[in-house]
């Protein structure tokens, strides 16, 4: 670092009126000019614009600036932008400091005088820090050119295929015994009424046989460590007790199996055996044994499947398999869980046989379902003539813990009602809605067609459902458009259940260190500009794990996530953040506290000629600074967040008269 007095340029941004309307930008810029070392201080309407950036670059050149301070929005918003501006003009990007006078000043304060004073304080603090900054060089690290996709629903399937087709080795890890996710359970998709499995199963098959894809199903993510370009992931596969190569799908094992269980794929409306195949189009397509219910595994004996298998495919000796995957990027595509309708006690799901959920409906109407596609009253098997749909069950319902709209249920109901209309042309179909939301290509047209086909839409959410002795359902609701109280007796009620973050997401989010939004879904890096990225570099998002969305939006986001992962994985090496710990070996006494406190194993005490000294393992260090805050000798520091820099900020905040 040059020992001469730093030459600082300060740029105070109006951000249109975002800052300028509350903070006196001119006064802040004038004030900055009086601070020690400040050579240039300017205000600008939009510092991030081309003009704004060029002005900084010209000043760097013409005024020989050695430090730059921009007072504008959050460094989380434009920190990178201005670091690049400096770098392009030949100034080390780590000689730049950003002052947040928008998110943390003009947007949160109304008193202009107080906001302006605060902005001046913040600028002074940044100037104090920037004087002490040192140029840092980015280290390079080799990129492991493989990707991991967590989740094998439509979101995971498409991102994996995009990656694999781009020539990238991709691992797909799925919790369930088959990929396919919720989309595989749907009968048809809106608004085109395509058969869901007809469009999905060829892609599922592609996953199973793609030369660049390795599919690991019935498996859990145990542990994840590392960083962008170099993640280590431990995956544990559960034993299926069936040898894939030997299984010919004859089904004799299931015929002989004495244990009968609710079939999850069919929402418990059908039975399956303890040895089973999840659904006919499952990928990988071979049987498995449900260890939690198998008579032999739980109690011993039985083994009827093994005795009767004509091809020796049953192997009770199989154990769980743990393996390590080394990947450069991770795409999280773990989807959603359907709202548990039994929570909504007033609608009687689980107590009244003729109240079903939207997902139950999908199975009833499916050719593979319990009635081969015939929608009937579960109580007596009669064809329903009066059917009601209730919208927003577990969505837009603060009491049920979800303020958000689940986005797909309106269209799913229009689809289901349309399908019912085809099957029962004379049936009365009512949809009780809060607001019909149909924003999507062809969605509104589809909704209007439904209205034309005599589906009755009633604005008003029923308070409760009662049941009579014949299992007919009585619904009282207010039609908020007409103000009339409506009493309706129905044969069948379908609850349009909303989408929830899966319960297991909390654990996965912790393993990946991902933030979650208040709704429980994973928080994206930026809601508009980086919807498929996360706060962790190298970890991407797609599908309902970020927020409820329909199939077209999910597939589009999968493309985005895959493109970004590919952009990372096609590089030979990536630049690592140089904000890392550093040891002053003169002060270090080799006590080892830093090593003990480091969660990343990134600092080690080693024998040197001067005795035991701590040494930083640069690629492993994440820059958190726990070591620096702990060191009893104050021998460890974190570059860019040194004690001296923090103390300078503290002093500048509290002692404005002290010239740094």
């Amino acid at each position, binding site marked *: 670092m040059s020992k001469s007095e730093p030459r600082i340029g300060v740029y105070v941004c109006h951000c249109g009126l975002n800052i300028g309307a509350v903070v006196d930008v001119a006064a802040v810029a004038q004030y900055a000019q009086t601070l020690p070392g400040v050579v240039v201080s300017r205000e600008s309407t939009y510092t991030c614009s081309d003009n704004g950036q060029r002005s900084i670059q010209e000043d760097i050149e013409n005024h020989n600036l050695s430090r730059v301070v921009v007072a504008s929005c959050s*460094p989380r918003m434009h920190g990178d932008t201005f670091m690049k501006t400096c770098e392009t003009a030949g100034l080390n990007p780590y000689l730049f400091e950003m002052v*947040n006078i928008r998110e*943390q000043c003009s947007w949160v*304060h109304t008193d202009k005088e107080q906001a302006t004073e605060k902005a001046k304080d913040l600028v002074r603090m940044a100037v104090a820090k920037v004087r002490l900054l040192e140029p840092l060089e980015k280290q390079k690290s080799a990129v492991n050119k493989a990707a991991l996709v967590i989740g094998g629903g439509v979101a995971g399937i498409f991102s994996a295929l995009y990656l694999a087709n781009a020539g990238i080795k991709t691992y797909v890890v799925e919790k369930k015994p088959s990929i396919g996710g919720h989309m595989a359970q749907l009968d048809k998709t809106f608004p085109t009424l395509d058969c869901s499995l007809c469009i999905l199963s060829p892609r599922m098959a592609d996953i199973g046989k793609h030369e660049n894809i390795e599919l690991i199903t019935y498996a859990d993510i145990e542990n994840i460590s590392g960083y962008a370009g170099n993640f280590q992931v431990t995956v544990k596969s559960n034993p299926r007790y069936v040898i894939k190569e030997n299984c010919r799908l004859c089904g004799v094992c299931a015929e002989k199996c004495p244990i009968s269980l609710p079939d999850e794929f069919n929402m418990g409306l059908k039975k399956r055996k303890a040895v089973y195949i999840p659904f006919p189009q499952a990928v990988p397509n071979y049987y498995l044994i449900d260890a939690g219910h198998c008579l032999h595994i739980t109690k011993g004996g039985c083994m009827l499947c093994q005795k009767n298998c004509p091809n020796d495919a049953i192997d009770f000796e199989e154990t769980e398999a743990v393996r390590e995957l080394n990947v450069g990027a991770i795409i999280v595509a773990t989807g959603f869980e359907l709202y548990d309708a039994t929570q909504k006690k007033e609608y009687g799901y689980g107590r009244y046989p003729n109240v079903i959920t939207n997902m139950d409906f999908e199975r009833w109407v499916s050719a593979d379902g319990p009635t081969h596609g015939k929608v009937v009253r579960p109580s007596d098997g009669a064809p329903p003539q009066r059917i009601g749909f209730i919208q927003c069950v577990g969505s837009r319902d603060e009491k049920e813990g979800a303020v958000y709209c689940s986005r797909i249920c309106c269209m799913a109901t229009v689809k289901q009602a349309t399908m019912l209309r085809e099957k029962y042309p004379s049936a009365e179909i009512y949809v009780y809605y809060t607001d019909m939301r149909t924003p999507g290509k062809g969605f509104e047209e589809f909704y209007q067609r439904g209205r034309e086909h005599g589906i009755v839409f009633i604005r008003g959410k029923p308070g409760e459902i009662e049941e009579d002795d014949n299992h007919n359902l009585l619904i009282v609701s207010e039609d908020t458009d007409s103000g009339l109280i409506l009493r309706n007796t129905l044969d069948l009620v379908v609850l349009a259940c909303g989408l929830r973050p899966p319960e297991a997401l909390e654990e996965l989010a912790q393993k990946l260190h991902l*933030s979650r939004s208040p709704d429980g879904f994973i928080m994206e890096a930026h809601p508009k500009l980086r919807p498929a990225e996360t706060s962790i570099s190298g970890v991407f998002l797609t599908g309902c794990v970020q927020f409820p969305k329909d199939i077209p939006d999910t597939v589009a986001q999968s493309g985005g996530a895959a493109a970004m992962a590919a952009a990372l994985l096609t590089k030979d090496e990536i630049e690592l953040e140089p904000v890392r710990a550093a040891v002053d070996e003169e002060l270090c006494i080799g006590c080892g506290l830093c090593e*003990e*406190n480091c969660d990343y194993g990134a600092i080690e005490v080693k024998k040197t000629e001067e005795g035991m000294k701590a040494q930083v393992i640069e690629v492993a260090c994440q820059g958190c600074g726990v070591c620096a805050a702990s060191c009893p000798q104050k021998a460890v520091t974190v570059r860019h967040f040194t004690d001296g820099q923090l103390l300078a900020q503290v002093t500048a905040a*509290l002692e404005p008269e002290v010239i740094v």
Partner: protein
Amino acid sequence: MTFSPRIVGFMCNWCSYAGADLAGISRIKYAPNLRIIRVLCSGRVDPYVVLTAFQKGADGVLVAGCHPGDCHYISGNYQAEKKMKATWKILSKAGIDQERLGLEWISAAEGQRFADVVNSFTQLITELGPLQADPQKIASAKEETADFRIRWLVGREKDLLEEGNVFGEPVEEAVFETLLDDVVSAQYIRNSILTVLKEQSMSAKELAETLEIPSHVVVEHLIHLRRGQKVHMVEGHPIRYEVSAW
């Protein structure tokens, strides 16, 4: 004019600083007293820096990190909690109300909570009034945050509680607390002695009077300080002590 407290905040980049940004994006208004210093992790906040803030005139210091279990790193917020707990002990030795040092968990999604925390903390500090602590006491407390023994003990806490001591015996939390209390108390007296002696040399009796502690306690600590070569005796009547050059 009503008292408007001066508050310095240390916010972790990933949760609390992002929570502050969200409060801004959501245009939630809050008190303008806080001056935020961005750190990558709440675990980076050195108690020494916190005490410096008090020394320089902060009426309150607010440290905020990710919720327990949600640390962007692995356990930085846990480390921050240990450090702030020890700092609370040190503050009370210096006669500073512990509540002036706030520790809060604010996620990136909690814009409203960020504003609520800032408002209630500002309110609390306003009620407590300006920090009127004895500069000598703050100086001693600050020295204490730099003290080897205390930093070592705080740094070892997690391991001592979870993994055990050198004999592999896990230390109970209550035992650890007592131990830390003892060390903080002893070290505080030693730092006070050093702070006073830096100004002028004194006899044990004079030290006892100045610091308002029994002279046998002063002597006990002087012995330790002499052994650590922090002070030395000046021959004469009475025997005086002065700070040794480092």
